[in-house]
């Protein structure tokens, strides 16, 4: 795949030498943001496993409504990423 199709008015400074978009003065920060997101995703996967185990243990998965995972995920994301709201 080529990365050479770009908008006509896109200055080359928007991209690194591999054609990836760059935003921060230190290119390491762009990658660091991605690492933090990946890491949070993996923590969330573990969280869902725990929720499932707890539901199983308490019998919730059979005779009671399951925990609202979408709402839990939103709470988790809001909590973890709260500091970036200060940008």
């Amino acid at each position: 795949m080529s990365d050479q199709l770009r908008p006509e008015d896109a200055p080359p400074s928007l991209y690194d030498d591999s054609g990836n978009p760059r935003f921060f003065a230190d290119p390491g920060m762009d990658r660091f943001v991605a690492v933090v997101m990946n890491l949070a995703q993996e923590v969330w996967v573990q969280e869902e496993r725990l929720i499932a185990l707890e539901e199983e243990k308490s019998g919730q998965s059979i005779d009671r409504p399951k925990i609202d995972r979408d709402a839990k995920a939103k709470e988790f994301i809001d909590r973890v990423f709260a500091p970036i709201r200060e940008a």
Partner: protein
Amino acid sequence: MSVELQHPMKAEATPDEVARGRFVSGMRSLILNDLAADMRSAYERRAAPAFAKEHGAEPQTSREAHQALRGDPAFNIYSAMRVQAQKMVWASVADSVERETERLVAEAQAVSDLDGSLNLDPALDVPKNVHAIDVHLMPGSYTRGEDSLEAGAVYDRGLAVFSMGLMGANLDDIGLSMSKYIKLRYPDFAPTRILDTGCTVGHNTLPWKQAYPQAQVHAIDAAPGPLAYASARAKMQGQDVAFRQMCADDLAYEDESFDVVWSSMFLHELSKKQRAKCFDEAYRVLKPGGLLLHMELPPNDQMGAFDGFYLDWDSYYNNEPYYKGYRDERPSDLCTRAGFGESEYFDFVVPSIGIYGEKAVAEAATGDRAEGVGQETTGRLAEGVMWYGFGAWKK
């Protein structure tokens, strides 16, 4: 938040894969709602005043708003996170698609005898904009896996995560909202042949068959894999549609052979030259009294500098190279240059039928059709989304 597909080709995802998809949908919601609002606030508080100090006036265009925001902390974090979330959309479905290759083939085979058709053209020269870049950062783009079901499955499953539930349970909210709007606004219009151009997996094709069950519905795309998937998907949902591999700027249909030529989120994927030819071809194949209708993002000349930049962002950072060029064009010019009369052109905004309900669509169809054009929620995949459309009647 993440949608479960409504047909047998949906993923048999592991609990971990479901969790990953849910997380990505949640991240996208944070980015497109909260961080987008933070970026707007930073633009108004910092970036636009700083630009004005340097240039003597606040940004007047999308390009100037972009220039003002580059380097701002809120822009940086929004953008870096949006790029990564986009990559995570596709990554979250890649494993299940790879694992289920054989099952997908079997599911498609099981419905192969149902009504509907698929015609691929191995000799077609698939345009560069379809295969040469990872469009919207989707690995392998629309031609991944050639004519197998792979690209369609990645797109369909990815869209379910990407859409955060805002594109409908069957990912067809755009088609449902728009076809309902047309049916209510023009109750005497009774198309018998409808063409969807650039249909990908046909998710916004099927609503036209549902709105006009008596009509023959045809759908084309340049990429073979998504079409193969679209055909199976349509059959699974009981819809008789003729899918054919073809470019919208070179239609192999006779003059004056369709009552509707439709597309959704398609025009921005074409170069300016291809786009102009698409309009010429649509005009040619429409019957007198036929309707050209496109759902797209609203054009820059209907938006302020920041809102224009917000939608143009994809052009620079989401591998949508023609997005800004498209939005810089005027939809009315695209129509009139192809031969449609100025007085036959119209544009409108439809509230999402899934979010606002049929009554809101009916009110839009009988009210002021320009109402809502240029509103902040128009064209944005965020809470309160409204769909922008335009078209013209052929006399």
